[in-house]
Structure formats: structure tokens, C-alpha cells
């Protein structure tokens, strides 16, 4: 019996889908059986980020309507044998499925997989209700911006009012140079407001954009800082103790010289 984890944020564009794709892939890299579920009906993206768009035959709505069996709708990842995607429909709307139907699907998936990672749409309406229906755990993604933190706070309140008690936090897209200048919220501030466990921090990394466009999750590229951050998160989910990433950028040549002569 596996775990079902919903990745949610409230606000759009903070990196839910990217996080889902990378955590799912990272867990697969660590040898786990993973199924990612896209519940963003009508605006599906997870298949694109994973590079599986052209393999979709059936989707989540087809399963809900009984047009196909759950196993028929699952798409095997091109990189791993034990990593699958249940795609959302692109033509329908969020209310094409009911939370109870999603819950049943997730229950069924949990029997075959170690981890069921559910990608939640932005917002707190029907799509959100669908996404959290089958999950017993949640990861809340936020960025170091007031608006995103506000929405994350709202989402945590809603999760706690449901059956999900201890959501975990990921702070995404941190730009350390801005944090240092005091122009971006720092992680301690965010954690003080949200008051939930931090499971990882992800630096802003241009390689993530490139990877998403190529349909190859960043986490596959060991040279990317964000990839290491996502791998760390996956290891923490498995119970390893991994220290938080040091975000300070490496000193440049001039700074090294200055340090050598102990000036500055």
C-alpha cells in the first residue's frame, strides 16, 4: 500500500507541475514505483513537462466515465519502467469528475505503487477538491513572494480543515542574491508565518525552464542546482536526513583574491 501525496499551492505559476514532475522522477531514480496524476483538467501540463504528451490515449475523465480501465489510461515513462502518468483531459472542465471518483482511482493506484503524486490545479475550487480527495499527505509549494505565501497560508488552512493534517512546505525559486539584499522574503520569515515543516528549498535555476521545454525533468541533469534540491527532497520523503542546501553562490575570482589578502 503506497502513499498518496498532493502537490498544491493555491497560487498559479509557483511550480506545482514542475515540482510534481521532478519529485516523481527523483523518487523513480531512487528505485520507487511512482504514479503521477494530473488533476488539472482542461489545462493539463504535466504530460508536456514529462515529455509524454504524444503518448496519451485515454485520460482521467475517460476512467471516471468508465470508457476505459484505469490501467489502460496509465502512460509508462520513457526513462523508467516503474514510473507512470495518469493524464488529465484537455477538452473537458474541472467538474467532469467528482472528488469521490478521484478518490477511488487514487485508492486503486496506491495498491500498485509506492507513491502516488497528485498535481493539483491552481485555485481552491472544484479542481482543488478533486485533487485532495484521494491524498492523505500534501506538499505545499510557495515562492518567496508575499502573494504566494498568502495563498499557501490559505491552502494550508483548507488542507487542515480536511483530512490532511501535516502538510510539508517547499520554497521554490529562491534567488539568493535578492534575499541577501533584503528584496526577497527569506526562508525563516516564510516558515515563521506558515508554521509547517519545511521539506526542501529549491533555488531559481534557468535549467528548469530549458528542461521543461524539452520534456525532460530537470532532476535528470546532475549539473543543475535545482536537480540536486529535488533529489534531496525525494530522499527526505524516504526518511533520510539531508541538510538544507547552501544557497550562497560560489565566490568569484575577485572575491577569492580579496579573501586571500584578507581585505573586504
Amino acid at each position: 500500500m503506497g502513499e498518496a501525496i498532493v502537490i498544491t499551492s493555491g497560487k498559479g505559476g509557483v511550480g506545482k507541475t514542475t515540482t510534481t514532475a521532478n519529485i516523481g522522477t527523483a523518487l523513480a531514480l531512487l528505485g520507487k514505483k511512482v504514479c503521477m496524476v494530473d488533476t488539472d483538467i482542461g489545462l493539463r501540463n504535466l504530460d508536456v513537462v514529462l515529455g509524454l504528451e504524444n503518448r496519451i490515449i485515454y485520460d482521467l475523465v475517460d476512467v471516471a466515465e468508465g470508457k476505459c480501465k484505469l490501467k489502460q489510461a496509465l502512460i509508462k515513462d520513457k526513462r523508467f519502467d516503474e514510473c507512470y502518468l495518469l493524464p488529465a483531459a484537455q477538452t473537458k472542465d474541472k467538474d467532469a469528475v467528482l472528488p469521490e471518483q478521484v478518490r477511488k482511482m487514487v485508492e486503486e493506484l496506491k495498491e500498485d505503487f509506492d507513491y502516488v503524486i497528485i498535481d493539483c490545479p491552481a485555485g481552491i475550487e472544484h479542481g482543488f477538491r478533486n485533487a485532495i480527495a484521494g491524498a492523505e499527505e500534501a506538499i505545499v509549494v510557495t515562492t518567496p513572494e508575499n502573494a504566494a505565501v498568502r495563498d499557501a497560508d490559505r491552502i494550508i488552512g483548507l488542507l487542515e480543515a480536511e483530512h490532511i493534517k501535516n502538510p510539508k512546505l517547499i520554497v521554490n525559486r529562491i534567488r539568493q542574491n535578492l534575499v541577501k539584499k533584503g528584496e526577497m522574503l527569506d526562508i525563516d520569515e516564510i516558515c515563521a508565518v506558515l508554521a509547517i515543516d519545511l521539506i526542501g528549498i529549491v533555488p531559481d535555476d534557468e535549467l528548469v525552464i530549458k528542461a521543461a521545454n524539452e520534456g525532460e525533468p530537470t532532476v535528470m541533469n546532475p549539473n543543475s542546482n535545482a536537480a540536486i534540491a529535488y533529489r534531496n527532497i525525494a530522499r527526505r520523503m524516504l526518511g533520510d536526513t539531508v541538510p538544507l542546501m547552501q544557497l550562497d553562490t560560489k565566490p568569484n575570482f575577485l572575491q577569492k583574491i580579496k579573501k586571500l589578502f584578507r581585505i573586504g
Partner: protein
Amino acid sequence: MAVKKNVVTIKGVKDGLVFLMNDQCAFEDLIAELKHKLEKTHHQFLAGPLVQVTIQFGERKLSEIQKNIIAEIIKNHGNLVIRSMETKEEKEKSRSNLKVIKGIVRSGQTVSHEGNMLFVGDVNPGGIITATGDIWIMGSLRGTAHAGAKGNMEATIAASYLRPTQLRIANVISRPPEEWGVQQSYMEFAYLNNGTMEIDKMVYLHKIRPQSMQFKEE
């Protein structure tokens, strides 16, 4: 015998008398004036047919013993019959009605209470905490707090860390901190001074609102 004026007011109504008892003075003063009025100044009532008496104590909280003392004094004067004793207990109730709540008020959530509220935890931006009396927060107030929600201008809002989005007392709304010019945010409270919101250190709370803290009975 020096008695404060008008602690006991006696009014005639259609079907009897109403005794209006001041609710701010000491109980002994009340007894003294009641006796004084019945025996010295208003003894003209006491001769004649039976008179129905209604006693209104206002917001004073009376024990059964105190009620009996008053009843005895009035009954001892022949023709007076007590019909009823009335106290406005609502406000008194709300003043002593303290509720302790623990948790986090997150964005979009509201906590409200009739009376005073002690909240242990944080109120986040977008969260609202409302009480008809005072609000004390052991934690950070970053959201909105509304004290004296039914119009009590005497209400206060105190917090370990006072950095709210907005503060409201009765019908006065304040947008801190740019309106206050206060840099410090730890252990402070907000109150109304002539209808304007002001902020001060927590240690001055008992001086500005002495009735918030009572160590002895009135």
C-alpha cells in the same frame, strides 16, 4: 449623613414605583442612601395603599445575600411590595466571559467570540479575529483584529508581536504601522483615545484601561 447624590433614584410609574440603583458606587453607599431616602426624604410613600416596586440594578452583579438585604429594607417599610429585581447582566457577562483559543488563524479564516478573547498562536495576514470585548494575543498578530465589535470603544487589542494588516476597535479602523509611526512591534497594545487609535507598550495597559484588570471586587 453625607450620602452621594442620586445613587438611588425613585420614579413613579403607572402601576407603582421604580427604584433605579446606581451600578458604579459601592454597595454600602447604596444601602445607606436607600435607607436614608425611605426613612427621611421619601417617607410620604410609606403611608397609604400597597405599592408595587420594581428595582433596577443596572449592570451591578449582586449576590443572593445582597439581594436579600435590599429586599429586607424595602419590605420593612410597610406598604411596599417588591414585584421584581432586574439586572442587566449581559454586559457584565461579556466582561467576565473570557475565552481561550489555541491555534493559527490562517488566511481566509475567521475566529470570533462574544466577550474577551485570549488567543494563543498566530494570526496570519488575511486572517480575522473578532471579539465584542478585548483581544489578547500570545503570538504574532499579522492579520486583522477587531475588538469591541459591537461598539465598545473601551476595548483593547494586545499582542506579543503587533504587526497587523488592519486594526479595528468599535467602528474605528486603523492601518498600521504607517499611521502610527511606531517602529517597535513587541508587547504592545492598541486602544482608542478620543476616537483615535493609539499604540502603547503593554506595561501601560493597566493605566489606560484599569477596568481590564481587577484584583478586587467592586
